[in-house]
């Protein structure tokens, strides 16, 4: 068991944080784009004479 709280701070945290945010933004954007294009295609096919 630890006698005291651990000391020190994780170094280089910014690059990990930025990577996580960029991947999140990319993931959400790509899915939104995929939904929009699939919906547009389905609507176009539906309205075909």
């Amino acid at each position, binding site marked *: 068991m630890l006698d005291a*709280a*651990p000391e*020190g*701070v*994780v*170094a*280089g*945290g*910014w690059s*990990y*944080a930025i*990577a*996580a*945010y960029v*991947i*999140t933004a990319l*993931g*959400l954007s790509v*899915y*939104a784009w995929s*939904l*929009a294009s*699939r*919906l547009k295609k*389905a*609507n176009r*096919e*539906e309205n075909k004479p």
Partner: protein
Amino acid sequence: MTQRIPWARISWEHWVAGCGLALLLVGTYVGLFVAPPERHMGDVQRIMYVHVPSAWNGLLCYTGAFVAAIVVLWTSRPKWDAAMVGMIEAGVVLNALLLVQGSIWARATWGVWWDWDVRLTTSLVMLLLFAGVMALRSFVEDAERRTTWTAIATIVSFVDVPLVYFCVRWWRSLHQVQSTPETVDRAMVLPLRMNAVAFLLLAIWFAARRARLELALRRRDEVAVPERRELVHA
């Protein structure tokens, strides 16, 4: 003559998405540049402001899909089938993001990208189960059977959802147990709540758009199937 105001034509879903996006931008700014770094984890802890909202809303989407699955088995209404599919797919996207964010956080704090820890493993199983439900659905051509099979598979897959939430309390895990506003600095609670609401609004938008897509595909299939039958008989 009355004239409609342009913004009045925008559907409620886009309003929800717009609010979600605006809130996400503000929440992200506060999370990255205003909230203080954590005492031991430093700046890497800022991943929490996207990681926890992804987790909460992913679980919420799967819970919504579970409820829709029960209702669809009861009523067989296409609207509920579409809602179920919308929430599963939104849940899968958030679940995938959750695992990637968690992996990055794990690398910085645990020194590894992945560990077969109970929280990580149950979260991965949850992703595979619900992605499997969507895959299963794509193999079934008949609309009624597709709805029934998806609903049953969703109900079975949902067994893992409470496991993901409670496993850190029930078993020993590297992953921390849930925090409460009492155990987190107030300056950290604000961006967390902002992003949680933002992710919720975006998840609603995703689920609603995916449900609309499902209904459009169903209408297209209803037109195409009789045409195909006519061709076979001819």
